[in-house]
């Protein structure tokens, strides 16, 4: 077993100058070169993190190579480390600077835009708050929680205004749920990495008050059928939510992974609708308008509707169907030759728990059932793993998820057969990765 040396500071200066940070906005470098450099950096980090050390280290030798390795005593044992309290809000190691959200370099503007979670860099089921995917329609507002209010009005007995302190006084609950943008990844975007291909999904532990508790406080009138939710951003983002969802598992959340929501995730208050397309979990929530009908807002007509080949569009397509993706080995990484690898990935379904994930290592000809890591939670990301001996020949690896309704994740061809190529939203197709004889991993659809 060979352990690749940890990348040194010199490598990271190089990373910072290329595509990794800040998030690949430099378009000057040809894609090919950038890809190669990035794959070296990614693989270096992956190799350092894996117990098998089986992935290749391609980056140039670190400056301090040898001085920290046996039989030498590492230099960081011979001096005092950084003083306690140097970072009162801790940050990742300086050697992890390449682990950042992916920002597409080609957007026309960055007020209505998105960033993607670096799925290929993460373990477990919880997305760190700083890496949770973003989709904003009017930028990220800076909201003073003392000045923030939630107003609930419309078909209610008692229209009320709540402060954040009042909302936090209600009995609270904590649940782990994924969120996924329904445009993850669209029908014609085939990213090079897992982040680029499917990074508009993340998973967190959310704390807040059940929406039904707060609706009880205002008292619903019998004709209440929908709730129009509005955010306090420059888009005044507005979506109509069926009352059944509001009285089921909907939450008003103020904390994510134990700390207050980040501004990018709706600080100080967010509607959280488990299993629904992420856009409906209104961030910076400031108003709930209880109505007898959906309001056909711009974001549920012009956008977030699924155009079918007959020219008609599906509306109110809320649920995110079962999906999975292999995150290791995945696009941009490189295997260091034949032998043992653990295939790792994530699966999730808006309809409940994942019951099964199958993995094929021969391009979909034969499939094996992967091991699911507990906990397997409803509407949360589930980890799967499959041990694999690569014989060194080119192949395609791919995963497919099944959820508790019996629904099986389809191929892209099956989705296109049913919906055509212009429905854009709700592409939950399998993501196949091609492994070349050299060990290079690329998106098999590119």
């Amino acid at each position, binding site marked *: 077993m060979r352990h690749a040396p940890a990348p040194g500071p010199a490598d990271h200066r190089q990373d910072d100058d290329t595509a990794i940070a800040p998030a690949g906005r430099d378009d000057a470098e040809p894609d090919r070169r950038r890809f190669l450099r990035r794959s070296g950096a990614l693989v270096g980090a992956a190799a350092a993190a894996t117990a098998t050390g089986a992935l290749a280290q391609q980056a140039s030798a670190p400056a301090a190579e040898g001085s920290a390795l046996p039989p030498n005593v590492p230099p960081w044992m011979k001096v005092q480390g950084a003083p306690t309290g140097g970072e009162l809000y801790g940050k990742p190691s300086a050697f992890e600077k390449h682990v950042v959200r992916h920002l597409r370099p080609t957007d026309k503007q960055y007020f209505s835009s998105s960033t993607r979670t670096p799925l290929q860099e993460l373990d477990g089921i919880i997305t760190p708050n700083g890496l949770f995917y973003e989709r904003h329609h009017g930028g990220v507002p800076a909201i003073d929680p003392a000045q923030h209010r939630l*107003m609930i009005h419309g078909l209610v007995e008692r229209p009320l205004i709540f402060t954040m302190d009042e909302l936090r006084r209600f009995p609270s609950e904590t649940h782990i749920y994924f969120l996924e943008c329904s445009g993850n990844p669209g029908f014609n975007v085939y990213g090079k990495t897992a982040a680029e291909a499917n990074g508009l999904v993340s998973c967190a532990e959310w704390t807040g008050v059940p929406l039904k508790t707060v609706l*009880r406080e205002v008292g619903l009138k*019998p004709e209440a059928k929908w709730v129009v939710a509005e955010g306090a951003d420059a888009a005044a983002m507005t979506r109509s939510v069926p009352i059944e969802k509001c009285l089921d598992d909907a939450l008003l959340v103020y904390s994510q992974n134990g700390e207050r929501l980040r501004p990018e995730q709706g600080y100080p208050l967010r509607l959280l609708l488990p299993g629904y397309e992420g856009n409906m979990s209104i961030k910076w929530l400031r108003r709930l308008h209880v109505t007898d009908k959906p309001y056909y807002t711009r974001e549920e007509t012009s956008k977030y509707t699924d155009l079918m080949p007959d020219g008609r569009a599906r509306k109110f397509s809320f649920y995110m169907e079962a999906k999975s993706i292999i995150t290791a080995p995945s696009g941009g990484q490189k295997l260091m030759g034949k032998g043992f690898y653990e295939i790792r990935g994530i699966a999730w379904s808006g309809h409940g728990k994942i019951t099964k994930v199958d993995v094929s290592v021969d391009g979909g000809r034969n499939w094996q059932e992967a091991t699911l890591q507990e906990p397997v939670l409803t509407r949360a990301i589930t980890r799967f793993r499959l041990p694999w001996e690569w014989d060194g020949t080119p192949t395609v690896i791919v995963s497919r998820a099944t959820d508790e309704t019996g629904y099986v994740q389809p191929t892209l061809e099956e989705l296109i057969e*049913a919906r055509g190529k212009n429905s854009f939203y709700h592409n939950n197709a399998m993501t196949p990765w091609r492994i070349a004889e050299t060990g290079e991993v690329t998106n098999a659809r590119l």
Partner: protein
Amino acid sequence: MRVSNADKSAFPAWAACCALAAASLAGPAHAADEGKRFGFGTPATEEQIAGWNIDIGPDGENLPPGSGTVAQGKQIYESACMACHGAKGEGGMGDRLVGGMGTLTSDKPVKTIGSFWPYATTLFDYIRRAMPLMAPQSLSNDEVYAVTGYLLHLNGIVKEDATLDAQTLREIRMPNRDGFVDDARPDVKHPACMKDCPGAL
């Protein structure tokens, strides 16, 4: 409505009284009517609600007083919208707003206000709440009516001499009004074959 002795200290007595009264009036139409109330929150006045509620229903509910002409809308468009959406709504940094009629069944559908949006009221709602991009909620109601009218005119939906107000806007029937259907998923059934499967990737 259940209020246990143990819960009484958590909220004022008047809240329990109100809760009981309200529950008996409204009836248990929803699950949310069951369980206790806490007496949190401050009543929202009509004035406070009116200041915040900018939702326009698809039937024109809550459209405000005011009016604007297509000609006025053209002027507003050219000063506040054109930089992003193009001289005639053809798009640029912002979405294309005009044209695309009859393209929805083609390989390259063009989804615009005229070809795709089901309700003209949504146009008023969206412009007022979110546009122009760098100054949302800065247009007066008259200005929003005017620019809504101009965009409808560019799409051939209202005449050049039209004046838009609550009444005329709610009476407009958009070309794609019936173009939306309910979600038909699950619509794909993958066979989940395990051995010697056809159609390998």
